[in-house]
């Protein structure tokens, strides 16, 4: 429904992508760091919103998969310094976890699904917190290298500087965003939206509803895992906090801020999330309270989120 002027929209997106590629020449180190964070939260939130906005399942446990992606990436990079392996391994680990936990979670819907995912997410957090030998406990894992992109014996590219790493995150994020855009406009995306609108009607359209919910859950897990894996080389450390339920709240807040029912909503929301946070922390350490108040006001004011204002016909 946002396709009123598709050509203008395409031009806008093109300009935006161009601006993102030029960003490190224009702004300082801190802004580049913020941009990386925004891109990571965008990927994280897009995955979350495939479940929430498109399939009708509200997960409070996405930080579990985010954490698994981050820890798996950390363990791999500490053993084998190759960023391809780190990112790929993080995504794969989160995907496996999502299949298993999803199989158990998608048997339920609504609040029961939300509570189950919250519990599973906190389970991951507890493991990260308690399994000191493997995860470093509350100290986390430190000294994780920003390893080069490498095809052994053939090709190697150092991405150790923040600027270079920004381009890794940018390219990977743009690919992930493109893939998600294709997905929600595909027959699979249509099927998920149909399940959201009416489970029983979808069932009698010949759709095995539970299987499709598991597919959506797994894809959301893959995206969370990718986001987590991208964060690890940026920070050079992982701590259990990233698997905490408060991290699960971030894609929820970003998506509500930006808009649940517009494809770009979670991306706009991720941007707003960090901008608001960045502004509010200058005045008070209780930034989350103020951010919460703004989200409440936005949700009550325009239910579709900020992006829906521009998508209106």
């Amino acid at each position, binding site marked *: 429904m946002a396709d009123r002027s598709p050509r203008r929209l395409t031009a806008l997106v093109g300009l935006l992508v161009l601006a993102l590629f030029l960003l490190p020449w224009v702004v300082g180190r801190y802004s580049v760091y913020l941009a990386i964070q925004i891109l990571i939260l965008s990927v994280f939130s897009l995955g979350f919103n495939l479940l929430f906005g498109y399939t009708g399942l509200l997960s409070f446990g996405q930080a579990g998969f985010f954490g698994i992606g981050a820890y798996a990436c950390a363990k791999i990079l500490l053993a084998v310094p190759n960023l391809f392996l780190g990112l790929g391994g993080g995504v794969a680990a989160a995907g496996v976890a999502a299949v298993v936990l999803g199989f158990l979670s998608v048997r339920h819907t609504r609040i029961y699904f939300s509570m189950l995912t919250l519990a599973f997410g906190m389970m991951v957090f507890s493991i990260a917190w308690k399994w000191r030998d493997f995860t470093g406990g509350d100290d986390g894992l430190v000294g994780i290298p920003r390893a080069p992109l490498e095809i052994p014996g053939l090709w190697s590219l150092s991405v150790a500087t923040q600027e270079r790493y920004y381009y890794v995150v940018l390219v990977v994020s743009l690919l992930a965003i493109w893939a998600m855009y294709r997905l929600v406009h595909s*027959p699979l995306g249509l099927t998920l939206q149909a399940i959201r*609108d009416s489970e029983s009607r979808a069932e009698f359209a010949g759709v095995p509803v539970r299987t499709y919910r598991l597919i959506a859950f797994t894809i959301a897990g893959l995206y969370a895992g990718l986001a987590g894996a991208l964060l690890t080389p940026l920070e050079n450390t992982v701590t259990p906090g990233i698997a905490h339920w408060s991290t699960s709240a971030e894609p929820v807040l970003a998506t509500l801020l930006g808009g649940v029912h517009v494809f770009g909503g979670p991306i706009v929301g991720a941007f707003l999330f960090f901008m608001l946070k960045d502004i509010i922390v200058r005045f008070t350490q209780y930034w989350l309270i103020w951010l919460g108040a703004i989200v409440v006001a936005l949700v009550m004011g325009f239910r579709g989120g900020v992006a829906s204002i521009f998508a209106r016909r």
Partner: protein
Amino acid sequence: MTTELLKTEGLSKRFGALAAVDGVNLTLPSGRLTAVIGPNGAGKTTLINLITGSLLPDAGQVYFKGEAITRLASHQRTRKGLSRSFQLMNIFSRLTVLQNVLLPVLSRHGSTLKPLARVDDQAKAVAEAGQILKEVGLWEVQLHPAGALSHGDQRLLELGIAIASAPELCFLDEPSAGLTPVERATVLDLIRKLAVERQTTFVIVEHDMDVVFSLSDWIVVMNRGRLLAEGPPSLIRENLEVREVYLGEELSA
């Protein structure tokens, strides 16, 4: 006269102490438009739920085209050619009218799993869905969100979704509920037309006796979970027992 499409044997379902459906033996031949009638709580909707897989029976069997489907999931029965609509309005309200009908078509073509294809590029399925919209008279509003349609048009859309999976047997639970007389006539004409053109065998659950007697070739009367009587409309009208249980007021008035 015609082949046997669906058969139930001793189909039973209890909800606590209540025998909602109690040992029902029912045979539905293809091509015969059957109406299931009975007072509220007679077990009509439960019977449909058991046949279509929304509920699993405590006892008994369901055979579709000679094959036992008693334990199959609903979506598997749909793939085999069994479809239904619901008593309460049940559409994909946030999708467009076209997408509502497109989903069962895509599902039948086995292309709902394509993650990177464009919906608009599924030309064959889109054409098929468009054809169905023409038949149910919603072609002009195909790009509207389904939830924005009038109640009458939503009923038509339900019919469109139900036939989009190309069923041989299609259950319609109160297809004319809440419609104005004009809309009702439209829906009934459409059911008659679809029955012939799409060679679909319809079974309707209906409270409106005018609808039942004008539309159906065969009437099945239920009461307290059992089959009370069945036969052509003319015979059912004369059946004294049925008149007492169900038609009493209307005929004596």
